[in-house]
């Protein structure tokens, strides 16, 4: 049950709370909207005839965007959360205002409320996505926005239910429904405050205003982009005409409702219309979501782009004929309901597909153009058309018929556009394919559509090897389409790359092509043979003794090795290898001996546990890196945690490092603990300890962060550098780690180290012309640079990482204005305690003043050359010690002979060697 639920909920550890918070938020926004939406119509039609509806729509089209722009421009002056809270407070206040004003029976109230609801709906939804942008990064957005979309649908259904069924059952009047909205609004304020605490630290400030700037500055540019591409033009035209048809259908229902209830008292009319619309929205929402869940994928797969985009115009076209022939409430409901049902299910999926063959930059710009400009223009044009007819045919029942004719014409155009889009879509997709710009990660989205699959299948007959391979890669995710006639001939293609990829794509076809794969077991290319083995093994992966067993007994050692490689990653854990098969592999001699031992190592993981551990322990020490690496992988796959210390030790050997890293990551938690303990053990091999941060960084959790933070004070500069790098990486994945207070402490400590190194550096600088001291001065200068990098890496865990990085690169820029801007930025960003110690280092302060600063801040006094040398020899890391020893020997500084003598017994070979050299020169 839990795992089934996991398939539906794509959250990862640590994301559950904030995702449910945002889900509730969007649920609240839509719930709110669907409570007030029918209310605004009921209130308006209780006070004004339906012929007046275009006027508030005009006002909305004119001012909704402008108001949204103004609100977002405020975002330049205040933070996003202040903006969000203020807006929600204004909405809450105005709702209370409406609550008290609703009894005054002012006719203008209906007008104001109508426009207000339309504007507030745009604003609230935009603000929700703005907040989501602050919280979720791109990767999270891809995974979680679908779930938030489901929250929106659920909210719409909830709102319609409250407005319809619940209000009817419990006799909730307009006032109480407004109070429910006030409560929702208060909840949204609370939710936004909590959600804001989860914002990404690297979310850029001024996001809202940037969004506005993009829009206002690029209208002509965007229009030019659209009108120079037939595909884009058709897409925009489709959205435009269907939007007008949708607005007309919406008006038709309201007009028909007005005609039905116009003889009622205004208050009764309001209630009747509100109830009717609420129920209509509830039903269309339910049908829409049912269609989305059950039929959308099927329709897209069966009928492609054309089918998906065709349904909405066809439904409205058909219903409009009903309105034309039998004008009335139910035919109008059919038109409006058809539009609502398809617009947010099948049509949306079809439109999303139309965006896919566009490069990401154009896709983003086109979406902006459609959402902002075309939407407003469409609403304006629809209001204009309706107004024309209502004025022309004032009071005549023929106006419903007249608008139906317009709908028929528009939807006919829409259907023609859909047909034309089929061709332009195919062309756009073909171009993407030619330029190999289709994102493989998005391939499954393309391949829900038959025409795209047909295009790819067509590409298999091409002459370009790379294009065939690319089309085959994309076809790997296709299911339920038989393209064996095109694929099977490629198994005999002259290019081994094509043969290999064709074998991998064979899995997309029904599993009756084993004979073809078996034939390729004799292919001259090892990669093709391996692909054939993988295909054959995967055919019977769920059977413990399926094809794998026979392939492991194959006469060719290459085939056995490929089967063993497949087994380690895919075979069932209860699969067992016969001991004699491994014995025979281990007995192999000659040129195949290494390959045979590698195969044996991989298969050793499938022996009975004690035998498996014993054999793998032995094979981890194999002199051949491939064999020892295979043993490490097999041990991890078998879960032999007792071998972790042996595998961990392999990190220090370059040839084995990659396999050891892979195995340790596969072990997970037990390896983390072992690696962490090694990092903490000051007696462990330094070369091994330096490799541990890489592993810990890739297991981001509180434990790994704690192990790394513990070593932030390491005296080994290389280890310290790698620890900080690892923490940077870990912080990217888990912005809550490590704790900010801990990092703040280390920033100050690192800055102190910088000042200490600076004082030593200043003691030597005048002598840098001399060969020996130049090396030491250069080494000290490089240590200073490394120190500064560490300070900025630590700052990146305290402040927005990207911006800190930009400031760091700007500081080393040749342009003075960029350096000054970086200092200015840090001056505004850093806490005053950090500013006091860090900014002097960056402001080009003179060396003397920096030395004074070091003394006043940390009590570090200036050093003479010999004293500095002594400190380096006694306290520094081995590299600086070695450089200092060279300096002592080169300059024959006899006064330091005693320390030099002591260093001839240092644990580091580099220091010992340099000390002997220095001693010899001092003698």
């Amino acid at each position: 049950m839990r795992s089934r639920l996991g398939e539906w909920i794509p959250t990862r550890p640590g994301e559950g709370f904030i995702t449910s918070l945002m889900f509730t938020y969007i649920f609240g926004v839509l719930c709110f909207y669907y409570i007030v939406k029918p209310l605004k119509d009921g209130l308006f039609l209780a006070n004004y005839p339906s012929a007046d509806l275009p006027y508030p729509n005009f006002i909305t089209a004119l001012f909704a965007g402008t108001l949204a722009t103004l609100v977002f421009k405020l975002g330049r002056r205040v933070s996003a959360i202040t903006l969000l809270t203020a807006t929600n407070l204004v909405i809450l206040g105005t709702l209370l205002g409406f609550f008290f004003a609703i009894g005054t029976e002012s006719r203008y109230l209906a007008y104001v409320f109508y426009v207000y609801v339309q504007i507030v709906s745009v604003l609230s939804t935009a603000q929700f996505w703005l907040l989501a942008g602050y919280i979720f990064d791109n990767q999270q957005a891809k995974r979680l926005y679908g779930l938030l979309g489901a929250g929106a649908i659920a909210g719409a259904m909830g709102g319609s239910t409250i407005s319809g069924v619940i209000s009817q059952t419990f006799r909730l009047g307009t006032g109480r429904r407004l109070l429910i909205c006030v409560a929702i609004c208060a909840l949204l304020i609370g939710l936004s405050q909590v959600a804001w605490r989860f914002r990404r630290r690297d979310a850029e400030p001024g996001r809202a205003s940037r969004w506005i700037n993009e829009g206002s500055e690029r209208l002509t540019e965007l229009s030019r982009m659209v009108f120079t591409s037939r595909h884009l033009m058709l897409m925009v035209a489709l959205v435009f005409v269907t939007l007008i048809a949708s607005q007309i259908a919406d008006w038709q229902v309201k007009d028909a409702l007005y005609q039905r209830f116009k003889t009622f008292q205004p208050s009764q009319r309001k209630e009747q219309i509100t109830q009717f619309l609420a129920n209509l929205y509830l039903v269309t929402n339910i049908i829409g979501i049912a269609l989305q869940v059950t039929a959308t994928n099927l329709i897209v797969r069966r009928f492609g782009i054309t089918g998906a985009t065709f349904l909405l115009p066809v439904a409205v076209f058909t219903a409009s004929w009903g309105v034309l022939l039998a004008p009335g409430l139910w035919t109008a409901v059919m038109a409006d309901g058809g539009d609502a049902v398809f617009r947010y299910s099948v049509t949306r999926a079809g439109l999303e597909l139309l965006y896919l063959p566009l490069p990401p930059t154009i896709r983003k710009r086109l979406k902006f153009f459609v959402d902002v400009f075309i939407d407003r223009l469409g609403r304006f044009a629809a209001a204009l058309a309706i107004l024309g007819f209502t004025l022309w045919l004032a009071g005549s029942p023929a106006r419903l018929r007249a608008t139906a004719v317009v709908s028929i014409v528009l939807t006919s155009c829409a259907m023609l556009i859909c047909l034309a889009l089929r061709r332009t879509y195919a062309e756009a997709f073909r171009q993407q394919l030619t330029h190999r710009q289709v994102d493989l990660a998005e391939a499954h989205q393309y391949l829900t559509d038959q025409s795209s699959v047909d295009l790819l299948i067509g590409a298999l007959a091409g002459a370009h090897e790379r294009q065939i391979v690319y089309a085959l890669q994309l076809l790997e995710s296709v299911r339920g389409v038989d393209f064996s006639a095109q694929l099977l001939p490629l198994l005999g293609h002259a290019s081994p790359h094509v043969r290999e990829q064709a074998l991998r794509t064979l899995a997309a076809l029904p599993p009756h092509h084993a004979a073809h794969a078996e034939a390729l077991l004799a292919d001259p290319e090892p990669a093709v043979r391996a692909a054939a083995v993988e295909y054959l093994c995967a055919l019977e992966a769920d059977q413990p003794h399926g094809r794998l067993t026979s392939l492991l007994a194959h006469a060719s050692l290459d085939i056995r090795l490929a089967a063993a490689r497949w087994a380690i990653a895919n075979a069932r854990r209860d699969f067992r290898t016969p001991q004699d098969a491994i014995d025979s592999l281990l007995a192999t001699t000659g040129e195949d001996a290494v390959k045979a031992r590698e195969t044996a190592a991989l298969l050793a993981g499938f022996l009975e546990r004690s035998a498996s551990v014993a054999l793998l322990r032995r094979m981890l020490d194999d002199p051949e890196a491939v064999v020892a690496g295979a043993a490490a992988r097999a041990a991890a796959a078998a879960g032999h945690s007792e071998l972790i210390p042996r595998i961990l030790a392999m990190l220090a050997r370059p040839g084995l490092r990659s396999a050891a890293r892979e195995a340790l990551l596969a072990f997970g938690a037990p390896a983390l603990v072992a690696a962490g303990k090694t990092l903490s053990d000051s007696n462990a091999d330094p070369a091994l300890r330096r490799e541990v941060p890489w592993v810990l960084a890739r297991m981001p959790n509180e434990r790994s962060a704690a192990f790394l933070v513990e070593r932030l004070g390491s005296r080994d500069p290389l280890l310290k550098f790698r620890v900080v790098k690892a923490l940077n990486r870990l912080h990217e994945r888990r912005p809550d780690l490590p704790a900010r207070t801990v990092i703040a402490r280390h920033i100050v400590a690192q800055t102190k180290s910088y000042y200490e190194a600076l004082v030593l550096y200043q003691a030597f600088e005048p002598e840098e012309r001399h060969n020996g001291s130049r090396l030491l001065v250069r080494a000290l200068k490089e240590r200073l640079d490394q120190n500064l990098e560490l300070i900025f890496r630590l700052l990146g865990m305290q402040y927005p990482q990207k911006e800190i990085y930009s400031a760091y690169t700007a500081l080393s820029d040749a342009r003075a204005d960029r350096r000054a801007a970086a200092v200015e930025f840090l001056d505004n960003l850093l806490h005053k305690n950090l500013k006091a110690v860090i900014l002097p280092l960056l402001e080009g302060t003179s060396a003397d003043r920096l030395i004074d600063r070091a003394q006043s801040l940390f009590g570090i006094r200036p050093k003479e050359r010999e004293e500095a040398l002594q400190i380096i020899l006694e306290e520094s890391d081995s590299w600086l010690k070695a450089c200092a020893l060279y300096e002592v020997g080169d300059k024959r500084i006899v006064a330091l002979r005693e320390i030099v003598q002591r260093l001839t017994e240092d644990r580091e070979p580099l220091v010992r060697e340099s000390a002997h050299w220095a001693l010899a020169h001092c003698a």
Partner: protein
Amino acid sequence: LLTVIEKVLLLQNIDLFSHITVEQLSFFAALAEEINIPTDQVLYREDDPPDGLYVVVAGAVSMRRAGDEIDRVGPNGSFGAWALFDDEPRLTTAETTEESRLLFVSRDDFYDVLADHVDIVAGLFKHLVERLRRLATVVEK
């Protein structure tokens, strides 16, 4: 025998290593091999496969192409640096003109160090990009 520090002092003059810290150079220095070569000894010939980088500690090496001497490398000079990256055969023949002491960094050792210290790659890339920029400027002119 040269100490690691002395080897670093020699390696730091090589253009290719201009963006690598002296500490990082010490990793190459630790693996660099010191070799003594008699006079008129050929180190490699044109079209030989590349094997590594040489630095002249003492003595001199003549670089010849199609029989003509195109360069002579003396103490602190280096040759064959591009063999560390390039698989193409040697373009020149290298032959000592006097008894020489050389420092040799093999391709295998070079890549072992890179595998251990990936940060060095950034310094190498920086140098290569600088060279490309210079080349682009020359081509533009």
